[in-house]
């Protein structure tokens, strides 16, 4: 008994000893280590032919030219296009990761298309006299915007709604002094490449309470008392004394004096965070109209399109009259707070939103239809606020939509019964017929007069990476500038002034934004607010603590960040649809511990 057991042990022992003299154990150790190099879950990048393709970024109105590095046609990285005279090869962080958007986990992936069509049709013929069918276009100035306007003209009682577009554009290159009332010049305003290209020539005076990215690089930052911009403007415009302004704004007299002098001397321009703010009227006093503030020009249109509905602002729409509201949120743009829209809707209004995000109107609309996202959609981009002269560029799709999407333009055209057509092509032909301007191809960086190209090549180049520009030096003064006087913030007991941090907001943000928001503290995530140490202390809020942002319109659960760079009496927020709905017109709030 014992002997056999002992022998068995000996046998095993011998086996073990022998095994060590064979390659087997060592090879297995090596292989397991190799296995850890590509164990399950680690994807293998596709290999294949690498080609460059061109398009334009539609994430904001800047429409920067984009060079996409594609493997087997699939874009794997995006860069700017150096020869492009407007964007100068620059992209913003959102644009750089734009090719990830189609795969965003939070993207709207399906929607009740048939139901929506049926509901809209029903509502349209059931609606009583005077009830309106309306399209809300968050990004006016595109070719599809004209489709909407034509559609609304074709429909009886059609209404084309859009956030106010400035009737002017800013010629930064012509300015020597830029006085910015909180305009995020270096962080989301206009075309990044254009701003930085012009940066060398102008002196920047940034007037805002928080030291934003723009203020940090400004030649002069005036940390103004929140809400006293008008007083400062008055002083710069010579309506009040500098002393008075200094008293109200908390900015030193000599500083204001220096700014006033600089503004009066040179070709100057005044910018405001909101392009239609009355502060812009200061430009007239500084004789900037026609020099740095010029008329905004759109590329030529087909004659047939002239019969189009006028642009109406939400405020001007009749109350309780909109029976059908179609919202094009496919591209992030000027979000109109919901509480401005709600009163305009009829009792049993049908609201359809074309969007990719659940953050915006999807929270309010009855029908949420998935729209294509950049770079899936064939779009064009209207001129940006800092684009002088006419320009036409197409965002050619880099890949087919990865989810079943609805094209808002086609949807609207269909319910309005417009004839089937390709508006972009028609527009391109119209521009080509106009025979003005030049066509710039990105592949070779060559610019050729439009009249020397055939219509087909014109169209081909626009789609394969190119843009049409007509910047005839003649600059016209803009028409009469209209401004919305910002309603005096209601003097309720809410202690904090809401200030929006810069950056592109609304719409899907590339998943990689986590690098800037969560994985470093470079940018404020959408659910964060920044407070001054003093305000935080007085409300018992600690850094990174959950708290509630309360305004007259409601409350929102956010995470507090204590930032010594934020003055007392100010709460800095990452502007977005939720915040817009929350703050609306009255930008005052309170932050309390959750």
């Amino acid at each position, binding site marked *: 008994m014992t002997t056999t057991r002992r022998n068995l042990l000996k046998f095993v022992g011998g086996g073990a000893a022998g*095994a060590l003299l*064979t390659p087997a154990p060592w090879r297995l150790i090596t292989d397991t280590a*190799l*296995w850890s190099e*590509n164990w399950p879950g680690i994807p293998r990048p596709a290999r294949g032919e690498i080609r460059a393709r061109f398009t334009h970024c539609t994430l904001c109105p800047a429409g920067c030219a984009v060079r996409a590095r594609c493997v087997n046609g699939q874009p794997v990285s995006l860069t700017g296009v150096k020869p492009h005279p407007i964007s100068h090869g620059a992209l913003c962080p959102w644009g750089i990761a734009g090719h990830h958007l189609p795969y965003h986990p939070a993207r709207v992936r399906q929607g009740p298309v048939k139901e929506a069509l049926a509901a809209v049709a029903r509502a349209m013929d059931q609606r009583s006299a005077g009830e309106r069918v309306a399209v809300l276009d968050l990004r006016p100035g595109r070719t599809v915007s004209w489709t909407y306007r034509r559609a609304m003209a074709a429909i009886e009682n059609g209404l084309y709604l859009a956030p106010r577009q400035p009737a002017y554009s800013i010629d930064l290159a012509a300015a020597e002094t830029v006085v910015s009332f909180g305009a995020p010049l270096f962080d989301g305003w206009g075309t990044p490449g254009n701003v930085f290209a012009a940066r060398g020539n102008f002196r920047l005076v940034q007037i805002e309470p928080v030291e934003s990215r723009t203020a940090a690089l400004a030649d002069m930052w005036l940390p103004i008392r929140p809400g006293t911009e008008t007083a400062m403007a008055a002083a710069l415009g010579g309506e009040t004394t500098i002393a008075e302004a200094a008293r109200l704004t908390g900015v030193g007299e000599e500083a204001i004096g220096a700014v006033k002098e600089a503004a009066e001397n040179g070709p100057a321009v005044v910018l405001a965070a909101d392009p239609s703010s009355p502060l812009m009227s200061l430009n007239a006093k500084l004789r900037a109209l026609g020099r740095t503030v010029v008329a905004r020009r759109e590329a030529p249109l087909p004659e047939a399109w002239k019969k189009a509905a006028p642009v109406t602002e939400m405020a001007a729409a009749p109350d309780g009259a909109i029976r059908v509201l179609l919202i094009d949120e496919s591209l992030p743009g000027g979000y109109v707070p919901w509480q401005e829209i709600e009163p305009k809707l009829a009792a049993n209004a049908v609201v359809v939103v074309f969007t990719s995000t659940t953050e915006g109107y999807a929270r309010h609309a009855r029908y949420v239809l998935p729209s294509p996202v950049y770079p899936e959609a064939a779009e064009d981009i209207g001129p940006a606020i800092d684009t002088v002269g006419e320009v036409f560029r197409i965002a050619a799709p880099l890949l087919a939509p990865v989810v079943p999407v609805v094209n808002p333009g086609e949807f609207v055209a269909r319910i309005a019964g417009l004839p089937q057509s390709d508006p972009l092509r028609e527009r391109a032909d119209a521009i080509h017929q106009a025979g003005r301007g030049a066509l710039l191809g990105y592949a070779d960086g060559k610019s050729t007069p439009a009249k020397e190209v055939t219509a087909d090549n014109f169209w081909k180049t626009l789609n394969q990476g190119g843009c049409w520009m007509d910047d005839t030096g003649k600059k016209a003064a803009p028409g009469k500038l209209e401004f919305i006087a910002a309603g005096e913030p209601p003097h309720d007991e809410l202690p904090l002034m809401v200030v929006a941090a810069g950056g592109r907001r609304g719409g899907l943000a590339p998943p990689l934004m986590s690098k800037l928001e969560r994985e470093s503290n470079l940018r404020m995530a959408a659910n964060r607010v920044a407070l001054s140490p003093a305000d935080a202390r007085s409300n018992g809020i600690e850094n990174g603590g959950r708290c509630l942002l309360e305004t007259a319109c409601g409350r929102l659960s956010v995470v507090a960040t204590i930032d010594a760079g934020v003055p007392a009496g100010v709460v800095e927020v990452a502007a977005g649809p939720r915040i817009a709905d929350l703050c609306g017109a009255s930008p005052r709030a309170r932050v309390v511990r959750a």
Partner: protein
Amino acid sequence: MIGGKIAFASGMLVALAGGWLAFPRILYQTRLQPVNFSHKVHAEKAGTKCEDCHSFRDDGTYAGIPTLDKCSGCHAAAMGTTVAEKNFIDQYVTPNREPQWLSYAQQPENVYFSHIAHVKLGHVKCEQCHGNEGGAATLRPYQRDPISGYSRDIWGRPVSPIGLRTEGGMRMDDCVDCHRRQGLEYSCMGCHK
């Protein structure tokens, strides 16, 4: 006592035999290529050279195993009479289905191997690394280490010389040896990515 020694010795023997003879065979899983392609025929009859099919792209990247359209260029219809070709036409060319070739030489993901640098700058002949693949009448079975997932040609010395191919120099050691011999740099990042 004696019994003990015998037990020990026999245990050892069994282990040795298993480790040296059985293990090398069971270690690799063997798969056959989708098509019985003959490099020899193409080289001799059609007089094609390696780079005719295994070509470089304009940007210098290596296209690797040719895609179907390359084959169908000539084989739109059967050219020979072999069964293999008939199957190839029926199963791939006609339905226009890419054959799933198994690449003996596919380097691991973490290797950046530049063919053109070796061929154009280093003047390395194909055979030097790939062995006499071009002259082979048939495609040898593809052997894969199921644990590491790598082709036998690119990782691990043949553990037992008995009855196994030893030629073909596409393992890391081969790269390093060659670079050493020619006094070339061989820092990790030079080849790894």
